[in-house]
């Protein structure tokens, strides 16, 4: 039965996340944008002490909607909040129960911790088959070597906490894609070092770093999935399953920022006594109304695509197509809507006195990380056409 109703319990959780966003994130949103790399310690402590409420897990429809609410408050502070993050999502998607215990239990105890994921390298981004990092077997160990860039929350995961990082590396370069595996590395492992901290366009409260691996030895059991190089793509497919979870999650982040921009736009024009009139023919709408309705419809449609992908995941249905659809749509909607909000607000939009320009900068990352809009569109295209990566490059 097609049904859009959330239970009272689910709604309460989402409302609670909204309260956090409103009370804790929004008031310091501008401050941490202007003070890049400064620790939002109060937020970190608050989010950690309230971790049992599941604000940042991002799992399931409700988890994703909670993330959406937090990002409505501030997308950078959401990313900076301690928790398993993308690294945790990878362990959850591709790990064994034993690995869950070993690597995820820490996120429920002790001091604040973060999880990170390391895939991108100086010479490759979306083309993961070009990854140069290697993992070489040495008895009961893997030895990691290579350089990873654009690691979200790598500094906090590895320097400031006993967190984890999931690293993608090849165990057999001659096998190409099939040799690509992911490994969990715990903070403090010798041979792993956090280097450059990026200065970014937006989401400045989050850290983005370079991590190098120089003969970094990790236990053999830290590999996610099987250690053998099997058929051409099997191992790789397992790793790609991570995206089924993380793409709708990033879509949720995008939609939170975007709704923040649209809500603020509505408030501002409301202050001028202008109400959006929905029930008008095209010829009687103002240009503002026409734009606003288009923005609002796009936002809602993207939201529904996102919760559908999450619902499929929770219902045990395959969602690789819909996860990419939701990411491509949300990334694009976020980009267009937040830019339009700045445009419509004129000088108020462009001024740092207001948050519109910040929303526009923060939103943009969502059309880039976890696969650019173009990569996700390519995934959708291959699936709807039934073409392999060789048939549609």
């Amino acid at each position, binding site marked *: *039965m*097609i*049904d*859009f*109703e*959330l*239970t009272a319990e689910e709604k309460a959780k989402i409302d609670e996340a909204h309260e956090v966003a409103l009370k804790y994130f929004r008031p310091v949103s501008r401050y941490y944008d202007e003070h890049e790399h400064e620790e939002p310690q109060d937020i970190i402590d608050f989010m950690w002490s309230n971790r049992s409420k599941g604000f940042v897990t991002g799992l399931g*429809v409700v988890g994703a909607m909670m993330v959406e609410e937090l990002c409505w408050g501030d997308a950078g502070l959401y990313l900076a909040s301690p928790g398993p993050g993308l690294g945790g999502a990878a362990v959850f998607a591709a790990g064994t129960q034993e690995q869950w215990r070993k690597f995820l239990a820490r996120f429920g105890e002790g001091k604040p911790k973060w999880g990170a994921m390391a895939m991108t390298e100086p010479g490759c981004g979306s083309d993961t088959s070009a990854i140069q990092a290697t993992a070489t077997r040495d008895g009961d160990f893997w030895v990691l070597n290579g350089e990873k860039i654009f690691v979200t929350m790598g500094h906090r995961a590895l320097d400031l906490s006993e967190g984890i990082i999931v690293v993608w590396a090849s165990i057999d370069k001659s096998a190409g894609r099939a040799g690509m595996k992911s490994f969990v590395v715990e903070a403090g492992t010798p041979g792993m070092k956090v280097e450059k901290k990026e200065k970014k366009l937006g989401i400045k409260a989050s850290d983005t770093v370079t991590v190098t691996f120089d003969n970094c030895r990790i236990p053999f059991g830290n590999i996610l999935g099987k250690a053998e190089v099997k058929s051409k793509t099997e191992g790789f497919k397992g790793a790609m399953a991570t995206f089924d979870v993380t793409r709708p999650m990033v879509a949720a982040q995008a939609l939170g920022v975007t709704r923040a921009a649209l809500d603020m736009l509505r408030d501002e024009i409301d202050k001028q006594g202008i109400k959006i009139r*929905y*029930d*008008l*023919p*095209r*010829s*009687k709408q103002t240009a503002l109304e026409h734009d606003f*309705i*288009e923005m*609002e*419809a*796009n936002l*809602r*449609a*993207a939201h*529904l*695509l996102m*919760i*559908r992908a999450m*619902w*499929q995941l929770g219902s045990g249905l395959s969602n690789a197509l*819909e996860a990419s*659809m939701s990411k*491509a*749509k949300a990334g694009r909607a976020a980009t267009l809507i937040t830019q339009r909000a700045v445009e419509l607000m004129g000088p108020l939009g462009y001024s740092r006195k207001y948050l519109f320009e910040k929303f526009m900068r923060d939103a943009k990352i969502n059309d880039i990380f976890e696969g650019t809009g*173009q990569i996700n*569109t*390519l995934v*959708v*295209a*291959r699936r*709807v*056409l*039934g*073409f392999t990566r060789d*048939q*549609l*490059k």
Partner: protein
Amino acid sequence: MLSFSPSEEQQMIVNTVKQFANDVMRKKFRECDEEGQIPAEIINTAWELGLVVSCIPEEYGGAGWEHSALTGTLLAEELAWGDLSMAMHILSPWLGVLPIVEMGTSEQKKKYLPAVCGGKFTAATAALIEPRFDFDHNDLGTIAKKNGGYVLNGEKCFVPLAQDAAFTLVYAGEGNASQCFIVDKGAKGLKIGEREKNMGIKALATYELSLKDCKVPAEHKLGGEKGCDFKRLTNLSRVALAALAVGVARGSFEFSRDYARERYAFGEPIGSRQAIAFMLADMAIEIDAARLLNWEAAWLLDKKAEATRECCLAKAYADNMVMLCTDYGVQVMGGHGYVRDNPVELWFRNGRGFVAFTGMAIV
């Protein structure tokens, strides 16, 4: 509980209509568009599926199912995938019936509903649109004056099946509100103009209609003295049209996708090029987006919620989506999309119409 799966019953209806659309509608739709008419046997076969009478209460001769706008959107999408002209023809009795089922007085139900419960297709229709570019459903040029009964004056257009309709629901302004009046076939002062010629939906017979001092009894005002819930009727129409738009867009998407797989250029299928493949991906995404947005709006209407905002968003989104998708369908096929041997040009012409079809379908 959140779910995106149709119920078993809904799925059954969808499957039935899907099969009819594929086996019957798709076999004839080009011919119908060229000739400007639909064979009676197609319409009667559709009638036998019982889609229209399903929501009429049993006491008036119907099947007495609970009306659901959401179920309506599911079957409207499938019908429009088959063909939009036929879909609008098949659904047109709902234009007359649904407002009476939802908002009619018991006398109105008794008088008009049994007439459309026979074994053969019976036309009923509604006249809302007026022939001006700045037509506004909330500020109608057709006026109803109370004078014992009501006197209607004005011009209408895009009235489906007006010639054959057993009765027509005429929308007219009374004071500041739009109200609905049931006008019997052959009423004095009701003049049915010539059949219209439009860019698309050529197989659907639509007419201009003029009302000159057309008198209707007071008890023909839909809902009686208090009138009807016009907002809800326009919302039920919005979700119907958005669903039809999704069906048309899906047709164009599927056809051009298959073409892009089979058409070779420079040694490989054109779909192997991102320039083509990305258009198809965008179509797939936009179609799903429009459908979900519309499902949510229809779901709200089924809960009897005030959903004007959601219905307007769904309709506005679908209007853009269907134009994009039907345009891309032609573009993907290039010259082969432009010739009438292929259907995408027909869907392209139909696609543009949704911005003008206000109130021409209801579910």
